């Protein structure tokens, strides 16, 4: 497929991204660069200095809201993307409402409980919608353990074993790899339909 055709196809698509941290911010930027037309980004958090080791924000944005700042950063890269920024802590009810019109949903939370809640909510309410989740990306190295596995419409990117802890922090390279794996899977889904 030629670049023009890819852009044309993607311009009509909508991707929902739950969480604007290391996974969500990097995944959203990759999708914006290739020209996904509509991106819904949701997060309730503000940018902290410690986030800058992996998240797509800048030093002078510390203290600002992640969702609206991500919109700003995306539109600096590609002003044609319609970014809908929602400053909110998602629950099962708002997940259903927020993402009902999305072609694909990206799970980009940090907490395991939130990942579970999002996956279960989408599987229950939108059994035919594709979800691209990320499980296991803490630490560094061990490139060959990072992969994508499929369970019907649910795709899991990551190594499925490296949990974040004090001794195993999330760092830019591995989080970025997994975020971009998610974006790559989203593209595959959007371009095959």
């Amino acid at each position, binding site marked *: 497929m030629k670049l023009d055709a890819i852009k044309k196809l993607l311009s009509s698509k909508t991707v929902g991204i739950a*969480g604007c*941290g*290391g*996974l*969500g911010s990097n995944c959203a930027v990759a999708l914006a660069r290739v020209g996904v037309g509509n991106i819904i980004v949701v997060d309730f958090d503000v940018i902290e200095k410690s986030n800058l080791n992996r998240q797509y924000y800048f030093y002078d944005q510390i203290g600002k809201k992640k969702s609206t700042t991500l919109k700003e950063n995306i539109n600096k890269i590609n002003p044609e993307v319609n970014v809908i920024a929602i400053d909110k802590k998602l629950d099962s009810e708002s997940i259903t409402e927020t993402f009902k019109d999305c072609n694909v949903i990206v799970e*980009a*939370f*940090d*907490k*395991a*409980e939130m*990942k*579970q809640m999002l*996956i*279960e909510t989408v*599987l*229950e309410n939108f*059994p035919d919608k594709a979800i691209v989740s*990320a*499980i*296991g*990306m*803490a630490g560094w190295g061990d490139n060959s353990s990072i992969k994508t*596995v*499929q*369970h*019907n*419409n*649910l795709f*899991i990117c*990551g190594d*499925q*074993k*490296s*949990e*974040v802890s004090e001794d195993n922090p*999330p760092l830019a390279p591995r*989080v970025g790899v997994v975020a971009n794996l998610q974006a790559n899977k989203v593209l595959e889904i959007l371009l095959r339909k």
Partner: protein
Amino acid sequence: MKIILNNRKEIFKADQLTIDELIKLKKFSFRLLVTKINGKLVKKENRGNAIIVEGDTVAVIHMISGG
């Protein structure tokens, strides 16, 4: 019975198992799971009575923090 568990063929002596029994047999010790039988979500409260039989496709996916 033969089933597909997490995209791999597995054989069990039992003719049927609940998801809870399967988790115990496989010694999955993860705190948070998403479980599915034949693509359909089985929530935590139903894992004790959701039956897996010959030919089923089962997913037991563990959730860990990080992002």
